[in-house]
């Protein structure tokens, strides 16, 4: 398990993809550890879907490379180990549920019919129902049944919860987490709803403008940052207290006379912590991600967390 390839589920090296409209991803380097649940975060157009398509071999990179457990995504080896739930959750509307599961069985060498059927039945969906007549929530369940029936080592979920109502979101997420926990599947999950990621993800990959802005262990990243709140210091341009030299200001917002700033401290003590006019706390994952999403695109804050 010390072999870095074996413990890396998804690795990108100088990965780039250009479309006619420009670069969707550029010079991305990352290693996503196996057995973890990675949140893939980024604003619209940051390249999240492109990354998923590159990881599944649906697209080929323009530059660099990407590998799944050390294999090129277009190889049979990588295809057999990867399951992908595309954003639009495509299914054949004219197939029955039973035929959809047969599709999975016919097209995969190592198919787990029992699991797939169990997932379908748990949603009270008839095997004879036509997929086109099912609700979005039921379609998500069928898509997940197909994904888990594949016995994947890596599960890629592109906005799996979008277009679902709150109850179904909880149900779908619960289903994913139960199956994943049982088998130690590596998951990469993209979502716009940051609060949903907080409870399920233990690793983060944040994309912005086609590049990697932040990556690393979720807890470690939170520990490496500090959320600072206090009254703006009028004598300084950014309103922040002096003595922050050991830290990088990721982002700061002034609301009236109050300043909120996210600092990257990498665990070093910050002078202002001692000052009781300033409140410092470990940020939540949501605070952290929001700050990085809001921050200016300047490359200075691009960081590599120790994996």
């Amino acid at each position, binding site marked *: 398990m010390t072999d870095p390839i074996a413990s890396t589920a998804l690795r990108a090296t100088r990965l780039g993809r250009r479309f006619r409209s420009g670069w969707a991803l550029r010079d991305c380097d990352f290693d996503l550890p196996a057995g973890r649940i990675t949140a893939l975060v980024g604003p619209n157009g940051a390249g999240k879907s492109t990354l998923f398509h590159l990881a599944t071999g649906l697209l080929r990179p323009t530059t660099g490379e990407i590998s799944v457990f050390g294999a090129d995504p277009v190889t049979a080896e990588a295809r057999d180990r990867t399951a992908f739930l595309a954003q639009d959750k495509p299914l054949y509307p004219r197939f029955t549920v039973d035929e959809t599961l047969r599709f999975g069985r016919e097209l995969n060498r190592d198919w787990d019919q029992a699991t797939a059927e169990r997932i379908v039945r748990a949603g009270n969906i008839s095997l004879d129902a036509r997929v086109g007549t099912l609700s979005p929530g039921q379609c998500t369940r069928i898509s997940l049944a197909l994904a888990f029936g*594949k016995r994947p080592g890596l599960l890629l979920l592109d906005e799996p919860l979008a277009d679902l109502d709150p109850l179904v979101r909880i149900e779908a997420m619960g289903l994913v987490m139960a199956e994943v926990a049982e088998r130690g599947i590596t998951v990469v999950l993209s979502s716009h709803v940051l609060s949903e990621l907080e409870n399920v993800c233990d690793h983060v990959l944040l994309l912005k403008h086609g590049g990697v802005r932040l990556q690393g262990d979720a807890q470690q990243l939170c520990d490496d940052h500090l959320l600072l709140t206090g009254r703006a210091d009028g004598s300084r341009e950014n309103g922040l207290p002096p003595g922050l030299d050991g830290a990088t200001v990721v982002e700061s917002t002034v609301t009236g006379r109050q300043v909120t700033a996210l600092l990257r401290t990498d665990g070093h003590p910050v002078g202002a912590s001692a000052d009781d006019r300033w409140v410092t706390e470990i940020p939540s994952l949501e605070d952290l991600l929001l700050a990085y999403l809001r921050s200016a695109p300047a490359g200075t804050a691009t960081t590599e967390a120790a994996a």
Partner: protein
Amino acid sequence: MKGALWLAWRQQRTLILVGAVVLVACAAWVAFQRADMTAFISDHRIPHCAGWDADECSGLDIEQAQRLLDDNVGALRALGTLSAALPVLIGVFWGAPLLGRELESGTWKLALTQGVSIRRWFATRFTLAAVCAVVGSTVLAALVAWWWSPISNMLNGLYWHDGYIFNATGPAAIACALFGLAAGTAAGLLLRRTLAAMGAVLAFVVGVRILLNTFRSDWISPIALTSRGSAPRPYIGTGWSTGEFGFIDATGHKDAIADACPWGPGLPDLKTCMAQKGYVGRYQKVYPSSDFWVLQWIETAVFLGLAAALIALICVVLRRRAVL
């Protein structure tokens, strides 16, 4: 059925079954019509008189022969139209959705993230469609030929060079079906929309057909049928006239002036006129009916070449995953 073939069958079975039903219905109808026709021919002892002017035509009961043609030519034309239109129908309803619908609905992402490779996924579905297209067009082409043969090239009936026959039968009709399928598939892949691909393939296949029909006679040279002096022109028989008539002078040079010696009151008769102008004979240019096969194989090669180029294009685009 197993694996990718099961998927291809499951997605194309409606088309296959509808096509099979139509073919069986056509075959039954043709068998019935043709039996009627051959009974009429033997009842009235109508010889197979090719062209207007063959020797077999001399003892012909023209009234009965005309009835024979009137009874069959219209229906045969309808069958010929169906067979000639088959490549377009295959391109529009089978080729265009083959990849177009997958790309439009996103289901290609589902299919290509399972265990089968893109090559196998495409090869299986295209091969199944191609086999069906070849079988279907072969059956229709054979039905046209079978029905037409007892009355082929007869009087004012259907001749080998008529579009209803030439485009509807022979190897070129089968190759054209394959071309239609490849064109539809490529259009679906490149346009990524079923409806747009349907329109594009309709225009493309019809356009190629019109071009080939227009330039059909340009592939090969016609032969000149000559007659000496003022002897009557030779029979065209089952030949396809180019419309080029004229006169031959003593050096053997052919003047394509059909009315060099017009006939009319006050004008010299043909023999005198020809002598005055130095002509020693007359000619006309025709394609003999044996050219049917030459032209068929030329167009077969054209269609197969186009189909191969389109399939190569599809393979390159799929290999590069240049579909998103």
